[in-house]
């Protein structure tokens, strides 16, 4: 069952302190900006954030980090030209970091969503990122054993959704969204528009509704989260 929301705070209500939050997007493409702002406003803290990057400038993920809500970041590429918020917290020891090769990040979340217990992966063999990990030679090639990354919550951005929870994306903004949607107990998607059930071509649905718990309809949401009403007591199972 998918619920449709126009209030961003209601859409993120119930995210518990200590939760692992998967955050979609690659650069700004597919980044669930409104949901991240609502997560900041919700007050949840001690979070583990799994995302490709660790925030840019002063907004979005960087603002979540700056607000002191994040205990650990799991990502492939934290260091960027304008990742000064992350850089400062990391250097001061206030933020834990796990660096994961980008494809392993995706595949480990895919494994979580697909019920795979662990998998032997050739990426990173013989590098510092495989140190201490189990390896095995299979058919003459060496692999590293990698474990699933499961989220309590996924926050993703999509192009359009329907009341069944089905989602479609747009161009390379698709990136991590479909994978994260499968890997979290509760998946929350912000979409540019909600369409009537039956309007999405069943052949072209990228994320079937079974993976989507809540949809935030950006076309109906207030422009600023601060204008939104206070959250209801809706619960997220963690």
């Amino acid at each position: 069952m998918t619920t449709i929301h126009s209030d961003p705070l209601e859409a993120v209500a119930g995210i518990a302190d200590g939760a692992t939050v998967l955050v979609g997007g690659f650069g700004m493409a597919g980044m669930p900006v409104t949901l991240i702002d609502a997560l900041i406003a919700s007050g949840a803290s001690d979070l583990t954030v799994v995302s490709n990057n660790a925030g840019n400038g002063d907004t979005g993920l960087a603002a979540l980090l700056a607000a002191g809500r994040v205990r650990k970041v799991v990502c492939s590429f934290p260091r960027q030209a304008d990742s000064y918020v992350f850089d400062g917290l990391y250097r001061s020891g206030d933020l834990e970091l796990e660096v994961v090769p980008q494809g392993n990040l995706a595949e480990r979340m895919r494994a979580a969503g697909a019920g795979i217990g662990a998998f032997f992966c050739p990426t990173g063999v013989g590098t510092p990122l495989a140190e201490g990990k189990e390896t095995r030679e299979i058919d003459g090639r060496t692999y590293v054993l990698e474990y699933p990354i499961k989220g309590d919550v996924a926050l993703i951005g999509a192009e359009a959704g329907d009341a069944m929870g089905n989602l479609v994306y747009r161009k390379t903004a698709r990136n991590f969204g479909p994978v994260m949607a499968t890997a979290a107990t509760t998946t929350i998607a912000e979409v540019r528009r909600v369409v009537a059930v039956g309007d999405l071509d069943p052949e072209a649905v990228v994320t079937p509704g079974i993976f989507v718990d809540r949809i935030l309809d950006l076309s109906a949401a207030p422009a600023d989260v601060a204008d939104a009403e206070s959250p209801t007591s809706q619960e997220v199972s963690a």
Partner: protein
Amino acid sequence: MSALAVPTTTTEHTDRGPLDKHELAAVIARDIPAGAYVNLGIGQPTLVADHLPQGSGVVLHTENGMLNMGPAATGDDIDPDLTNAGKVPVTELPGAAYFHHADSFAMMRGGHLDVCVLGAYQVAASGDLANWHTGAPDAIPAVGGAMDLAIGAKDVLVMMTLFAKDGSSKLVPACTYPLTGVGCVSRVYTDFGVFAVGSSAEGDPGVVSVLETYGASVDELSARMDVELRPL
């Protein structure tokens, strides 16, 4: 993880039962939570769809690659490209989605379905399921999606007759047929009653909780079965 309602006391229906397969399908349909994502196995479990109430919001999954499957197709609606897992022509409801086999079974294996309803040769008190092979030495093995389905939902419900043709109970202390899955069944729906098994059963391991009986009392059923039954 289970979303099934659990009754507080055992009800012995002496006014009705044993149930025929349609009545049994109705009982299962009654217990499926509104809005659940459900896979109905090949054969009798497909009857459950006929008894889901209008507006239940239940979404049917078929493991050959579809969500929001509609009823069986008839006449001009028959489309060879649109079948269920039993290769029976079906229809598509608004809001459907198609996906390939790896994605479909990932959906099951990943625990995203709420309920799966399966037939069985035997179910053990521990929740072990045997439904793919009778173990006959000359039988050609064929598993299909049975093992994937067995572990592929938050609640795996079995729909079967309680007794085999020779009168022996199919709800057993331990399966004698080759297993399909270990400890995977949460509830067994039969013509004579509904039973919670495995981790869904209350109390000691190996003891089956009786939720309802049809046309027989718990004591009468106990007398015909080797497994220990316990009312709620």
